[in-house]
């Protein structure tokens, strides 16, 4: 342990990585030099066994991981399955990646490396490793593209079809999600403020609102399509119904968040109900309202896409996904999914940023991490 300064788990990973590299080197001997970069990776990876004698810098493991991934991607045959010893390269570079991440996080924890920046490297490596493994497995094992296309094909399709993807994005996100989200959230907020004055109404609305939030409201999509037609209005209506109840429940709860002593203070200022609401209770409800806004940002996109399965004009993300499956254009479907994921994350991110600006006083924001 002293010699290598590795934990048991890191040691096992190191053995796995170097062992796989050595095996890959052995199996690639029959045709040496056919893929020089890969041979270099195998040789260096096997040579990393010297850590048994003297420690190796963790960045060397990182470099090996990178080399393995690049060599493997470059060596992938254009058609057909890849030679068997390539799999050892995949195992070895995956193990090097894991080892690197383990040592990196240990170094951050021990304070050898700064948290900012390097802390971000780890999830990025994990994501890239997933993408590389996806690419290598789908192309290397000759998985039919109809089942699961490699990321490169999805990327190519994404680049080739940007105008279709943009039209779908406008139809689904700009026309359906945003108006529905705005109307649903504002209506929830307004109803919450309206019932807030009456304890009787509040006692009645809260259980019903909580119950409705747990229901599969998405099921009203076919009804909305019948009522409002095939175009974006019906999708926006579904989004309104889905976003209304979380907003209502959270706002009602949030309006109770201001403490009695703060309300008493407003009372001594002779503030009327409206002033108390605007200057104290609504700001105090901020964290709750933003919580609902964040929940709703993901619900809204899902609601709009699912509603498009029940009837739509010939544009829209849900339409493209369902017809793409029918035409076996799975790479287009995945490109559409990527757009949805990015749009959803960006939407969520924007709300979270606004939250940090508006509720800057809240402990969860002042603590540094939202």
């Amino acid at each position, binding site marked *: 342990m002293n010699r290598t300064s590795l934990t048991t788990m890191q040691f096992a990973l190191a053995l796995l990585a170097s062992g796989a590299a050595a095996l890959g080197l052995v199996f690639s001997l029959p045709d040496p030099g056919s893929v020089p970069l890969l041979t270099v990776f195998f040789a260096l990876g096997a040579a990393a066994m010297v850590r048994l004698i003297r420690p190796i810098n963790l960045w060397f493991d990182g470099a090996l991981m990178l080399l393995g991934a690049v060599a493997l991607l470059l060596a992938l045959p254009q058609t057909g399955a890849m030679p068997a010893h390539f799999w050892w390269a995949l195992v070895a570079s995956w193990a090097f990646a*894991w080892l690197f*991440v*383990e040592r*990196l*996080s*240990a170094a*951050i*924890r021990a304070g050898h490396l700064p948290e900012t920046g390097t*802390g971000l490297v*780890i*999830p990025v*490596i*994990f*994501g890239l490793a*997933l993408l590389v493994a996806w690419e290598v497995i789908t192309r290397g094992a000759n998985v039919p593209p*109809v*089942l*699961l296309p490699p990321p490169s094909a999805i990327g190519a399709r994404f680049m080739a079809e940007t105008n279709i993807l943009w039209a779908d994005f406008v139809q689904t996100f700009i026309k359906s999600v945003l108006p529905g989200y705005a109307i649903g959230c504002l209506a929830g907020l307004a109803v919450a403020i309206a019932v807030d004055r009456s304890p*009787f*109404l509040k*006692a*009645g609305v809260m*259980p*019903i609102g909580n*119950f409705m939030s*747990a*229901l*599969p409201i*998405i*099921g*009203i*999509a*076919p*009804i909305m*399509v*019948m*009522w409002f037609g095939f175009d974006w209005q019906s999708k926006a209506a579904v989004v309104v119904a889905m976003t209304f109840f979380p907003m209502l429940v959270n706002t009602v709860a949030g309006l109770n968040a201001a403490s009695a002593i703060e309300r008493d203070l407003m009372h001594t200022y002779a503030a009327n109900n409206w002033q108390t609401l605007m200057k104290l209770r609504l700001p105090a409800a901020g964290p709750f309202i933003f919580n609902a806004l964040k929940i709703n940002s*993901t619900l809204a*996109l*899902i609601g709009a*896409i*699912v509603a498009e*399965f*029940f*009837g739509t004009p010939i544009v829209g*993300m*849900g339409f493209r*996904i*369902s017809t*793409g*499956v029918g035409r076996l254009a*799975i790479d287009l*479907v995945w490109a559409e*999914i990527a757009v*949805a*994921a*990015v749009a*959803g*994350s960006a939407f*969520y991110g924007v709300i979270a940023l606004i939250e940090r600006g508006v509720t800057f006083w809240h402990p969860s924001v002042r603590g540094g991490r939202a």
Partner: protein
Amino acid sequence: MANRVIPVLTILLAILAFWYAAAIWMNAPWQDRLNARADLVDVPFAEFAAQTWAQDKPVLPAPHQVVSEIWNATVALEITSRRSLAYHAWITLSATLLGFAFGTVLGVALAVAIIHNDASDRSLMPWIIASQTIPILAIAPMVVVGLGSVGLTGLVPKALISMYLSFFPVVVGMVKGLRSPEAIQLDLLRTYDANGWQVFWKLRWPAAMPFLFASMKVGIAISLIGAVVAELSNASGGGLGVRLLTGSYNGQTVQIWAALFIAAGLAAVLVAIVGAAEKWVNGRMGARA
């Protein structure tokens, strides 16, 4: 009790009254046309209202129509009949429960890995969050078709969708819960010379129970939604989602509403069961209410 029930009942009655009024208003244009064709003029309002509440394919069915449809499609039919709502509800329920079980186990396992390993905390957590930005519900029908082409059919693909949706709240809740013991409590166990296993079973796991149940309530509701949406792609497989789909193709609004009510009832019962289990476990562990 009374001052809890009365407000809820009042609101429910108001919704019901509003619903009947809306049914008159929304069904009126079609009823007008029917009456004009039948040369009925000057129908008194009470009779007209009754007509709008008894249409065959109303724009908005009146509540009693939905209730009688549910009755006809459950109690009045053989449970094995393909027209029985109970049969379809059972298909959806079994996929929901299977997916929920998978999701809970996966979520707990991931949470345990995350709190015990620094690297998996740093590498997994951001991607678990990112995994939820993929609108899986939106692609659920496609996933089911895709899995069907590799030979996975029936319950499992739907359960996988439910699992994907329900593991997330469980991971987030359990990570929070397993980390909820305070330093002073961990220190106490150190003075007892407890090993990692004992710390887990005697402190972290019990401390995480309230978080687990709160997450499971969210998880089971979302599992049901996942199962219903996953059924939309396979019209022959049955399930509440299929009832929604065929209802929408045939304009059978009463059928859609009946399926929706059954789904809502299922969700309520499932959440209530999890809540009851929570009370029981918390009571056994001596938690103060």
